[in-house]
């Protein structure tokens, strides 16, 4: 059984600075989103329990060929990638179609894993969209997975309760960050990463028109304005007095 993990290359958000309300992305290195790393770890643990191969899929700019080493070093066996420098800031619907094409190239799939949301946009759409394209069942916000024969028992964490669900395979699962802690890759794994098999597809191979099929337009994208009072207080008493005067607290 192959376990597929979808990962998204994003700028290292810790290093993004804001100038004049615009994000400065110049020189910010690319990495995988943090929940994606939990998804990969989930796949690796499933593989350790039940065998099979872990295959990473991703679509992104040419740098992705380097970034994907992070996943291969952590233990993924193989990568299927779409590389194109136009693949920056693409819509969820486009990502879903590109990734679905990659998935179609892979045989004998058991589970397709996603993080519950990407590190940058966190919109959580691509997993469910791919499930729809491929006609597969999907369970989101999974915090526990138990493999059964041709099915899987998962715990879905909702806002107010947990739901234990049994689902037929193949299935799409999106996982929560607290499901595990990603492992630290070992040295030889890191060095072998670049030598692991990679299937690389071009956008033309897939026949998708990146520009033509826009469903969303972005009107503006600015850091939120901060209009705050910025009053410096010296001690706890002064602070409490100020808050009482403002009426946000009562004694």
């Amino acid at each position: 059984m192959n376990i597929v993990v979808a990962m998204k290359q994003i700028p290292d958000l810790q290093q993004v600075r804001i100038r004049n309300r615009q994000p400065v992305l110049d020189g910010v290195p690319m990495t995988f989103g943090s929940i994606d790393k939990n998804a990969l770890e989930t796949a690796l643990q499933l593989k350790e329990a039940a065998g099979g191969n872990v295959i990473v899929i991703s679509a992104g700019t040419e740098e992705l060929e380097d970034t994907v080493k992070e996943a291969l070093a952590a233990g993924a066996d193989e990568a299927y990638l779409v590389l194109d420098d136009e693949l920056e800031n693409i819509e969820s619907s486009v990502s879903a179609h590109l990734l679905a094409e990659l998935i179609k190239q892979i045989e004998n799939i058991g589970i397709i894993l996603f993080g519950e949301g990407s590190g940058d946009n966190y919109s959580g759409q691509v997993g469910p969209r791919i499930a729809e394209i491929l006609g597969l069942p999907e369970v989101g916000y999974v915090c526990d997975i138990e493999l059964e024969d041709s099915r899987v028992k998962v715990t879905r964490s909702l806002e107010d309760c947990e739901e234990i669900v049994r689902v037929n395979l193949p299935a799409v699962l999106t996982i929560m960050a607290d499901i595990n802690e990603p492992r630290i890759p070992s040295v030889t794994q890191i060095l072998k990463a670049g030598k692991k098999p990679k299937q690389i597809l071009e956008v033309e191979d897939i026949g998708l028109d990146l520009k033509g099929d826009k469903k969303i337009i972005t009107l503006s994208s600015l850091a939120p304005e901060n209009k705050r009072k910025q009053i410096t207080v010296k001690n706890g008493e002064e602070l409490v007095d100020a808050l009482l005067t403002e009426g946000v607290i009562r004694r």
Partner: protein
Amino acid sequence: MDLRLSKEEELIQKAARDFADKMIVPIAELIDQDNHIPEEIFEALGDLEMFGIPFPEAYGGGEAGYLSYILAIEELAKACAGIAVVISVNSVGLSVINAFGTEEQKKKYMPECMTGKKIFSFAFTEPGTGSDPKQLSCTVTKAGDSYILNGNKRFITNAGFQGPMVVIAKDSETDKASAFVIDKFCEGYSLSEQWNKIGAHGGPLYDVYFDNVKIPEGNVLGRSGEGLWVLKVAMIYGKIGLSGLFLGTAKAAYEEALAYAKQKTHRGQPIGAKFQHIQISIADMAMKYNACRWSAYNLGFTADTVKDPNQLLREAALTKVFVSETAVEICKIAMGVHGSYGLMKDYKIARLWGDVIIGPQVEGTSPLLKILAAGIILGD
């Protein structure tokens, strides 16, 4: 030049950093107090293959080169100098086996010393001789197809861990030095009490006593009588490790001071924002750390690309002197930023102060290494 880390280098650095943050930082103070590193740490480091970064894959290593090795040692040492000392000395043993060992010796000793379960030592220094090779007093005497080893060695790191040890001793008949591999804790092997070292705790030092230790003939390392060649190679790789190690200590001191300057307030304003002398201190440290960093990384690159051992020894000696001396300067400045608080063991800088002064004193003091480098530079 291309001063970007490759993705692989970056990932090795990150693996070491993540491990250090998660597993070492929380217990670093405890390691310092107890002068003891928990075995789980060694095993976990073994699993991450941090013991074998530059060594051939065929013997269980990572074959990632010495630049990666320095990147990893820097990160580990930043969290705990003692752990880096253990790895560095272990690597010295591995380096000489790798350079001089027979196929059999390599197969026997290298893989086990990369798992964290066995740890190498290297024994050269003696009580009477300091580090002068011409005055060795440890002797071996040929007896049939074995050698009998007698004598004492001083300040030997990792001597208390299970694993092999390379010993340099003089042949009582030929008067020439040879290198041997022995198993620690074999018959006739015994240890002194631990030396009470000022810092880099966790990698304790012992004196080692050999009382008629029997060494099979097959355990001569390299050719008989060529012990000083083995020593030379050991010195090179020891200095590479120490350059990475004290680079890490320097970084730790710098980061501590920076954090302290941001946090400590004087009349409502952080000292780093208020006082120009604190700002100058911070800039001085950053500048000096940068110089150390490029020197140390350059040494790693040189070790990966340069074949001439003399050139490498020169670079290694110069870099070790520069980095370890500069690390002391950085730590002194960082101490200045802390004021009296820096004297308190509650602050990490107090621990780093004990760690950093070790640098210029070990594996050849700075003046001694300068004599050595001068010989190569002046070509005489």
